C-alpha cells in the first residue's frame, strides 16, 4: 500500500513535478493586469481599488460603478478595509482601473500640493446612512482651512443635541479627507480624535493653514 501513497514516499518524479512549476513574477504581474482590464470591460468588478502614495502614507481608494465609496487612511488595516467592503458591498473586489479612482488620485495629489481646495468627485454614500450621512454631508460644506466644533456640526446637520452622534458619524467616515471630517474640532479648539490618528489630523489642518 505504501507505493499507493505519493505523500509519504516522494520519489524523483514527484519531486520534479513539484518543483517544475516556476513562475516569473513579471509575467504574473502582467497577467493580473490583463485580468483586471478584462474583468472591468465585462463589468464584473463591483469594487475597484488602488493604493495611492501620499504625504500621509499609502491611501487605499475604492470605487463602485456609482462613485468613490471608500478612502482608507494609512493607519487603517488594508485587509480589514477590503474585507469590510466585501461584506457590505460585494466580494467582487479587485485591484483594477476605474475612472473614479484615477480622478480621486489626481485630485488628492493636487490637494497635498496645495493646488486644490475642494474635491470635485462623484461619491457613493452607501457605507453610511441616516443621521450619520446627514452629518457627513454637512461636513462637506466646511470650507478649506476652516473648522467647526462637534456641537456646531450637529446643529448644521439639524440636531443640535446630537453632539455625541455627530462624533460617531465622523469616527466612522468612510471617505476621510474627501469628506473633511478633520475640520471638526472639540469646543475650545482641541484636536479631538481622528480615524487616521491625531498626527494625520494635525498634518491635514497644517496643510490647510487652519492651525
Amino acid at each position, binding site marked *: 500500500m505504501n*507505493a*499507493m*501513497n*505519493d505523500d509519504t514516499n516522494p*520519489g*524523483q*518524479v*514527484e519531486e*520534479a*513535478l*513539484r518543483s*517544475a*512549476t*516556476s*513562475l*516569473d513574477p513579471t*509575467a*504574473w504581474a502582467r*497577467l*493580473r493586469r*490583463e*485580468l483586471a482590464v*478584462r*474583468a472591468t470591460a*465585462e463589468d*464584473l*468588478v463591483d469594487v475597484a*481599488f488602488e493604493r495611492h502614495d501620499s504625504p500621509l502614507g499609502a491611501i487605499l481608494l475604492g470605487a463602485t460603478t*456609482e462613485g468613490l465609496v471608500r478612502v482608507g487612511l494609512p493607519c487603517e488595516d488594508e485587509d480589514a478595509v*477590503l*474585507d469590510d*467592503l*466585501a*461584506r*457590505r*458591498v*460585494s*466580494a*467582487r*473586489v*479587485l*485591484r483594477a482601473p476605474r475612472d473614479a479612482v484615477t480622478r480621486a488620485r489626481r485630485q488628492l495629489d493636487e490637494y497635498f500640493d496645495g493646488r486644490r481646495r475642494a474635491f470635485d468627485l462623484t461619491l*457613493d*454614500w*452607501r*457605507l453610511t*446612512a441616516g443621521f450619520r450621512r446627514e452629518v457627513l454631508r454637512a461636513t462637506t460644506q466646511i470650507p478649506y482651512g476652516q473648522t467647526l466644533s462637534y456641537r456646531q456640526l450637529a446643529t448644521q446637520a439639524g440636531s443640535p443635541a446630537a453632539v455625541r452622534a455627530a462624533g460617531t458619524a465622523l469616527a466612522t467616515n468612510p471617505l476621510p479627507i474627501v469628506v473633511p471630517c478633520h475640520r471638526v474640532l472639540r469646543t475650545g479648539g482641541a484636536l479631538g480624535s481622528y480615524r487616521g490618528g491625531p498626527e494625520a489630523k494635525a498634518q491635514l489642518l497644517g496643510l490647510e493653514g487652519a492651525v
Partner: protein
Amino acid sequence: MNAVARGSSERTAASLPTFERVVDLHGPAVLRFCVVQVGAGRAEDCFQETMLSALRAYEGVRDAGSIRAWLFSIAARKAIDAHRARARAPEPVEEIESLAGTEEDAQRDDALWAQVRALPDKQRQAVTLRFAGDLSHGEIAAVMQTSEAAVRRSVFEGLNRLRRDGER
C-alpha cells in the same frame, strides 16, 4: 437608498474573501495547472477564462472553505476545452513568451509537463491537480466528481507511467 439597504442588511451572513485575495492565494496554482494541461501557448487564455468565469459566478459561492476546489473545477473544464482544441490543431512552435523564470527552468519544466500532457485524461488531470494545483486527494475527487480512492489510483498510475517514460 436601495443600495444602502442592500449594503447593510442582506449581506451580513456572507463571509467570502475579496476576489483579489482569491487571485492572490490560488491564481498562481491555477496558472500552473493551465500551463501543464494545455501548454504555455494556450495557458494564459485558459487562466483568464477560468478567472473571468469564476468572477462571474463568485457571488453565488456558498461555502468559503471550498473555493479552491470550486476554482479548479472551472479550470479543469476550461482545460478540457483547450485540450480538445489542441488535439485538433497543434499549437504553433514559434516564439511564446515564457511564464517560467529562466530559459533553463522553462526547458526543464516543458519537457516534464509535455510527458504529463501525454498521459490519459484521468491520470493527466489527477497528476496535474495534485502537483501543479497542490490540491488534496479529497479536493481532486470533488473536482473530478469521483471517489478519493479513484483519485489515488489515477495519481499512482500516472506517476508509474511517468517513471517508465523517464527510464526510457
